[in-house]
């Protein structure tokens, strides 16, 4: 029975750093590109070429460490991890073995539980094999692209926690400009180490490692499959063997790649081509100062200081560019609530993917948005008008005043509003009767009539009050 077991899981996450150049040479890290065009003697590992460690990469990795509450090793060095594979041009990966840049951090889940971060180290990515009808080819454009590997403690107890942990990692990386974490481009890949043990046991079971999972959904699916597989093995009295697995997305199944008898012997030793390096406290403080407010602090502040609803805060804080826009608008004095509502209701209605919200590439400036929100704040226009105007602004890139006439901005006075309400009741006798006989939603027809005839200027709550009194 599955319920007899508890899961123990730790995740190794590879994150491609947002550096324009590779870790050991000046070649571009741009995704795509004709095969083998972003290459030089260094990243091709040609005989005689030597690596030169990018200081930007070290800084980004330190930034990642600080953003994940790690302590930074002031002295560090690179190691060679030796193994042979055609996509690895030197037959060793330059990585860090026993002296990683960052150690001992954590990520806090919504429940308050902390997932420990054992270490973060820097390393180079490998190239890519391209299998074609004429054979297998190697593209080394990705070789030497800088990565950090974030290793968690085995603190993850459910697939949902794994999902939340990795989602939070991604948000933090994006927020602090450490990585774009575009998962479809492989900029964030997770290796899930998972084992089962009887509830209450204090020894670990044998773990398997499912490598290179590239979406949050797949992490959950792969983990559920692996939990089921291991439980079935244990239930049948078998033993789980230490294996490297792969999640086959198309077939939704876990496939064994190779069993690890004993251990992989990577023959690590200190990289002689790169001297030991140091980071001083002043540099660390500079990097710390460059880390912006992180997403979960932001969410807190939006709710506690700006008075946003949790709903609104949750819809904003995940998207760094949205937050930047939102904050630029409210910094001019526009109210947070109206600004948030217009963003979430009107602007987001034009986006169909998360990616579009993340990019938040819109044609409206914060200044024009602020002008519009202020009309709304001062009740010069209704929410409906504001929304309609905003849609026109988004479409044309023109300012708010292009769509709002001075006449629109004159208030509907009490006499005019009364007259509009009377007219609505007279011209919609059926709706009026419906309201009288208890079909309350018919009031919307009458209200809509008032709003339409006032070109949206009327205060709809006030209009409803008058209509009810008339009926």
């Amino acid at each position: 029975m599955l319920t007899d077991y508890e899961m123990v899981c730790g995740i190794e996450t590879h994150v491609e750093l947002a550096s324009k150049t590779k870790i050991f040479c000046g070649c571009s890290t741009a995704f795509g590109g004709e095969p083998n065009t972003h290459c030089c003697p260094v990243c091709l590992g040609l005989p005689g070429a030597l690596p030169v460690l990018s200081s930007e990469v070290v800084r980004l990795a330190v930034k990642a460490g600080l953003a994940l509450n790690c302590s930074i090793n002031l002295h560090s060095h690179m190691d060679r991890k030796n193994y042979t594979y055609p996509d690895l041009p030197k037959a060793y990966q330059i990585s860090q073995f026993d002296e990683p840049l960052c150690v001992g951090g954590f990520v806090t889940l919504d429940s308050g539980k902390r997932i420990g971060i054992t270490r973060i180290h820097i390393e180079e990515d490998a190239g890519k094999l391209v299998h074609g009808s004429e054979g297998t080819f190697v593209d080394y454009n990705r070789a030497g692209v800088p990565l950090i590997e974030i290793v968690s403690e085995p603190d993850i107890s459910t697939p949902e926690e794994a999902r939340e942990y990795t989602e939070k990692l991604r948000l933090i990386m994006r927020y602090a400009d450490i990585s774009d974490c575009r998962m479809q481009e492989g900029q964030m890949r997770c290796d899930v180490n998972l084992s089962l043990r009887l509830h209450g046991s204090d020894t670990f079971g044998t773990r398997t490692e499912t490598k290179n999972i590239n979406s949050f959904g797949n992490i959950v699916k792969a983990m559920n499959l692996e939990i089921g597989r291991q439980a079935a093995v244990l239930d049948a009295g078998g033993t789980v063997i230490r294996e490297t697995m792969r999640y086959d997305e198309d077939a939704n199944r876990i496939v064994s790649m190779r069993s690890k008898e004993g251990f992989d012997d990577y023959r690590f030793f200190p990289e002689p081509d790169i001297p030991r390096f140091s980071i001083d406290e002043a540099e660390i403080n500079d990097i710390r100062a460059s880390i912006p407010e992180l997403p979960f602090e932001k969410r807190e502040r939006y709710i506690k200081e700006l008075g946003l609803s949790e709903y609104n805060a949750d819809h904003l804080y995940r998207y760094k560019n949205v937050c930047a826009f939102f904050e630029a608008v409210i910094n001019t004095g526009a109210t947070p609530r109206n600004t948030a509502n217009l963003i979430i209701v009107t602007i987001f209605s034009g986006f169909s993917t998360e990616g579009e919200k993340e990019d938040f590439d819109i044609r409206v400036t914060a200044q024009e948005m602020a002008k519009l929100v202020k009309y709304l704040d001062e009740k010069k226009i209704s929410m409906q008008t504001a929304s309609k105007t905003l849609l026109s602004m988004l479409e044309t890139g023109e300012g708010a005043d292009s769509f709002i006439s001075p006449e629109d901005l004159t208030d509907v006075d009490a006499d005019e509003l009364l007259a509009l309400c009377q007219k609505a009741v007279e011209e919609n006798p059926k709706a009026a009767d419906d309201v009288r006989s208890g079909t309350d939603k018919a009031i919307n027809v009458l209200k809509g009539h008032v709003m339409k005839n006032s070109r949206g200027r009327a205060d709809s709550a006030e209009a409803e009050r008058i209509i009810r009194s008339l009926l």
Partner: protein
Amino acid sequence: MNTLFELSEKLKKREISSLELTKAYIGRIDEKNPLLNAVVHKTYDKALALAERADKRLAEGNAPLLCGIPVLLKDNICSEGDLTTCCSKMLSGYRPPYDATAWKRLEEQGMVLLGKTNMDEFAFGSTSETSCYGAPKNPVDPSFITGGSSGGSAAAVSAGFAPVALGSDTGGSVRQPASFCGVVGLKPTYGAVSRYGLIAYASSFDQIGVFAGSVKEAGVLFGAIRGTDSHDMTTCAGFYSAGKRQDGELSAASAGRRLKLAIVRELSDGIDEDVKNTLERARAYFSGTGAEIAEVSIPSLVSALPAYYIIACAEASSNLGRYDGVRYGHRAEGAASFEELAVKSRNEGFGDEVKRRIMLGTYVLSGGYYDAWYRKACEVRETVARGFLKTFEKYDVILAPTSPFIVPRFGEKRGAADLYRADMCTAPANLSGLPAISVPSGTDRNGMPIGLQIIGNRFDEETVLFAAEKLEQGLKPQHDTWGGYAC
């Protein structure tokens, strides 16, 4: 006999053109190389083009000292578009798409590249006999070996194929063949010369070095290639102060100083009688010049050679992993999988000594053996470095033999362990990254050259060259070699 300085003078006065000089050296190589086998790849087209370019600069005036002078590079130093094969079948046909920094700097000076010289395969050896092109022969007497691994460069300078040449020294590979061929061989401080473009053997020891007919000429060539390089993080500016020797001339302060020399017991124990006698003559000579000279002991040196071989093989096993037949060099036919391709290509491409060192290196890095071998060797390395440092607190330089034995004949039976012992006197300098030079100092019972070594403190090439020049003045033997210069 023309030195580098005389040739430069003639070029500047336009008594001879670089093109004429280059053609003269080419003629000499074409005549004598078939017997000596010192040059394995000729770059004559490039040489003629570079010579023409040098002549233009010379005509304009203000050309650097080395402008228009021919040079040879060891077959493990990359030059764009030219065969660079480490004398291994594994790299047959390989033409690097870029220049090694050391060569680039010489090219910027206007030097003319004549070709690549013979060497032990991947520089693994001390005889040059493991070359896939066959061994080079000693110009002093072709029935003797040249030593190695930079045997081709040593033989080439000795035979007058070029006034100067570059080699590489990981455990003695410049100094030992220089000693055997009767020329000067300088291994600079680790980090003094960029390794970018030097095909790696053991990265933490490898250093490009120079061969020349005299200490002064070696100093000039070293001055042209040394210095930091943004392509090599292990290069280091060192402590070359203004006014220190950079162009082969002594600074005034150095010229009159009283040298303090140490003879290290562990470096001169168990050496051949003829070598010992030469060392004694050097000791007497230095004493006679008023220098202070004393015998000291650095006990950790007894473990230096094994430590050197453990670390060198470990690094080599990693450095040579990349030769898998996928991207360049030898590719085996008919392999069905990557693994088969790599295994077959390596099996066919590498010679026995290379395979031996890869296996040794893989073993000492393997799980369960790392602590006993590699880590221990690194500890020895640190102890040795401290021992040298202490010696240099009291003494300017160390005087030592270059090779523990005299030049062997071809065909003399030697086991692998004997060959490894060849590095006994030279490898300690690599282990500690120290500058060292071999200077021709005597003749053995066969009439072959014997070189002695001056080892100095890190980045103190100035004192090393100063002491070496003294040694040269005092002991330089005259060998009836094929040497001399083409013009």
